[in-house]
């Protein structure tokens, strides 16, 4: 086969692969880079900014690696050979100081963004904040709405453009609560409470899951985070109230038994301070972990 044909085949293969990749990403969003809320958008910007900043060092490293390796290959007798050269103060100072300068910039960014994007910090908004309590269970997510007095499993609905305070705990091993298109994750731990403040700026259904292994059924711990218009949210709440399935202590205890692939379930009411009780049970001697 001649060089020309080989070249044509190579070009076709590369073009075919490139086309496949492009087609793939046309149909599949990259969640973290496709934010649907202010928190995720700021986190995406932070990732892109950091990447660009680091490339200031990385691109020269790549170019120098190729350039130096090629020029000073043993076969190239024209290149200068200095078998005693073992350092250069100015050059070494440069590669101590230039990265230090870049990291200094990044340090300021890290300090500021850690505070502005602290998951415990309420979001600024003209709309009133809404609280949703989250309990990670073996192996499903329970969402309790203290203001609406309803509860749901593996499905969380909330109005768009409304800051949500997710108050999170666990009645099981450690999990991590993550809705990539709305913002970063935080751990769910038994006997402890964490907070994650998120907001959706677009109506839609977003994928959520547990990012931390919690046992056999952990892979099925995904849920839908539905950002709805306020009218749709109200009618969803009304529908839940009509379901006539209260989440009393007996219902909770049967839900708490390990199970996988739980269907979306709505509860018409929740036991008073159920969430507080789940938190407290791990502080009471003799309660807490189920022993199987």
């Amino acid at each position, binding site marked *: 086969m001649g060089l020309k044909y080989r070249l044509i085949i190579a070009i076709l293969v590369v073009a075919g692969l490139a086309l496949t990749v492009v087609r793939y990403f046309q149909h599949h969003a990259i969640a973290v880079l496709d934010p649907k809320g202010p928190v995720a958008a700021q986190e995406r910007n932070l990732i892109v900014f950091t990447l660009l900043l680091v490339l200031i060092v990385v691109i020269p490293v790549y170019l120098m690696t190729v350039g130096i390796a090629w020029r000073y290959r*043993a076969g190239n007798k024209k290149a200068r050979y200095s078998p005693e050269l073992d350092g*250069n103060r100015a050059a070494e100072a440069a590669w101590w100081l230039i990265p230090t300068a870049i*990291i200094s910039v990044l340090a300021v960014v890290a300090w500021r963004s850690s505070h502005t994007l602290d998951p415990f910090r309420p979001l600024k908004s003209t709309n009133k904040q809404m609280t949703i309590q989250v309990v990670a269970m073996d192996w499903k997510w329970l969402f309790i709405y203290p203001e609406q007095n309803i509860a749901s499993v593996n499905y969380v609905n909330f109005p768009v453009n409304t800051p949500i305070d997710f108050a999170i705990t666990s009645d099981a*091993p450690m999990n*991590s609560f993550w809705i*990539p298109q709305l913002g970063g994750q935080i751990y769910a731990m038994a006997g402890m409470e964490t907070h994650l403040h998120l907001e959706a700026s677009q109506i839609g259904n977003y994928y959520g899951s547990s990012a931390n292994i919690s046992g056999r059924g952990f892979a099925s711990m995904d849920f839908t985070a539905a950002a709805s218009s306020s009218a749709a949210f109200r009618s969803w709440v009304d529908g839940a109230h009509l379901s006539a399935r209260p989440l009393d202590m007996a219902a909770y205890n049967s839900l708490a038994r390990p199970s996988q692939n739980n269907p979306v379930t709505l509860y018409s009411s929740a036991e008073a301070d159920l969430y507080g009780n789940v938190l407290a049970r791990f502080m009471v001697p003799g309660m807490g972990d189920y022993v199987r």
Partner: protein
Amino acid sequence: MSLRSDLLGRLNWQAFHHPWVTNVGVASMTAGAIAVVAALFYFKRWKWLWREWLTSTDPKKIGVMYIVTALVMLLRGGADAVMLRAQQATSVGVHHGFLSSSTFQQVFSAHGTIMIFFVAMGLMFGLINLVVPLQLGTRDVAFPFLNATSFWLYFAGGMLVNLSLAVGNFSAAGWLAYPPLSELAYSPGVGVDYWIWGLQIAGVGSLLSGINFSVTILRMRAAGMSLMKLPMFCWSVLGAMSLVIFAFPILTATLAMLALDRSLGMHFFTASGGGNMMMYVNLIWAWGHPEVYILILPAFGVFSEIVPTFSGKPLFGYKSMVWAIWAIVLLSFSVWLHHFFTMGAGADVNAFFGIMTMVIAIPTGVKIFNWLFTMYRGRVRFATPMLWFLGFVFLFTVGGVAGVLMAVPPADFQLHNSLFLVAHFHTMIVSGVLFGYLAGLTYWFPKIFGFKLNERIGRYAFWCWAIGFSLAFIPLYVLGLMGATRRLDHYNANLGWQPLFIVAGIGVCFIALGVACQVLQLVVSIKNRHANRDKTGDPWNGRTLEWATSSPPPHFNFARLPDGSQRDAWWAAKKAKTAVAYGPYESITLPKNTPLPLFIAAAAFAGGFGLIWHMYWLAAAGLLALVTCLIVRTSAEDNDYRIPAAELKKLENAEQAG
């Protein structure tokens, strides 16, 4: 209590019921063991094995045993990796893959545990044993008996982990076994106990080695070799061993507390009863982060030897390199919290640890620039060790960029525990640690075995690894950004992740091809060893003292101790056309062979097995046997033998005559 439960604890027939995948694994390991035993009988090599290897206190022999064990464990951990990729490529939507979730979770827990503790650590200690005494121009390590004990404890820990495949099961709680999942309430079986005791036994071995090699480097250097003349590999080992000394006690204590929780009903880390799981996460990473640098520093050291040798130039910026190592050593103890920014510590705490993490990128970057400028104005020969180095520079930098991204806490909230994280640390550990050690193995192979490895097949192996690695892990970076979390045994079809998982699976096939090339390389090289014999002792035109003695070196390394008063002492001697040997022949003492390290490890193995299965008589017997061995050793007096000066002279003259 019945006699049966007294004798056997929790062990019963149930422990031997396995899914078919496990049975295939057990069968292949058993077949391998039978083949080795049969070969030993057939070639009548038992005595040789016992005398030359199992009871040896020679660091060169111990180094080879570390590396053989690590390579066998690499095959085991690699088989695990293939299963993980196969499961994730196929377990989508209505299809549920060929592994149950509990088997899948055991497989990834075993994969991580084996690759870190028994492959990476094994290769590292193997190379250190082979190279450090030779580079220091000395005959042995500071504590040869302890050194053999370290190896056998490492071996016993590894065998305990392997045994879990056949008897009972392994931990399904991930390679770091976070409580409360790893507590009795959620993991009641023997799996987590296998994990605890396998690591506990191997970890003690690592700590002993850390002390041993620190003392060796500080106290046993060649005449004239001041610290600022140390070969850079020894510097990096000294850094890593300092980390071992400070970090491994934390691991030992943490595992002990988890064991107490599980066996005596204590509540260090339980969710209830006053325990605190966050304390475990802190402690395990206070060990775990330095551990990463324990693994990477000696790999950096390997590159610091290879690049100067193949460039025909001294290392650029020696002092910078030393400072960079010690900056990394110090900083590595101030960053552990970046493994759990998402645990809800305040913004101040997260920001502090994030910034400390980024700062580590500075000395690491300095090292890369110095290696590049070592090639500058050199005569660079691209033998396989250099290919591994170039692959390292390209891939490790990608992993470093990912690392800096994750050092910014709010960015980490979106990347943590996703496949992006998995891709990041595999880039660091495969293209950093493993490529480094594979380069080192190729580089020092002729020194240890007396012949070179086949270059051409070595190149094929490198390209399979480099291409396979990129194919296997670039899709994982993307998947992580798409919201794919780690450790999923199944996912929904509508997420659209499957094509990328399939590409990753193809990547692993390429890596497997690379491993096959390496096996072939070894076979072909052994077959053609007479053609590739290294008669000079210096096959690469090296610079440091290990090349100043014959290949393989005599068991006493140097008949006359070399002079180390110049940096790159061997290169300086070659250039000045002087002999590197120093001083007259003097009689020397070396440690005798002893089976006690092997017995100590066997006792630890039995004791560990007893603790795992609640056979308390066996645990007590193991402990008693171990203490007995120690008493026997401490009361023995005649542990050394002497080689007189005249004998040494005769041996060396015979060597030179050929």
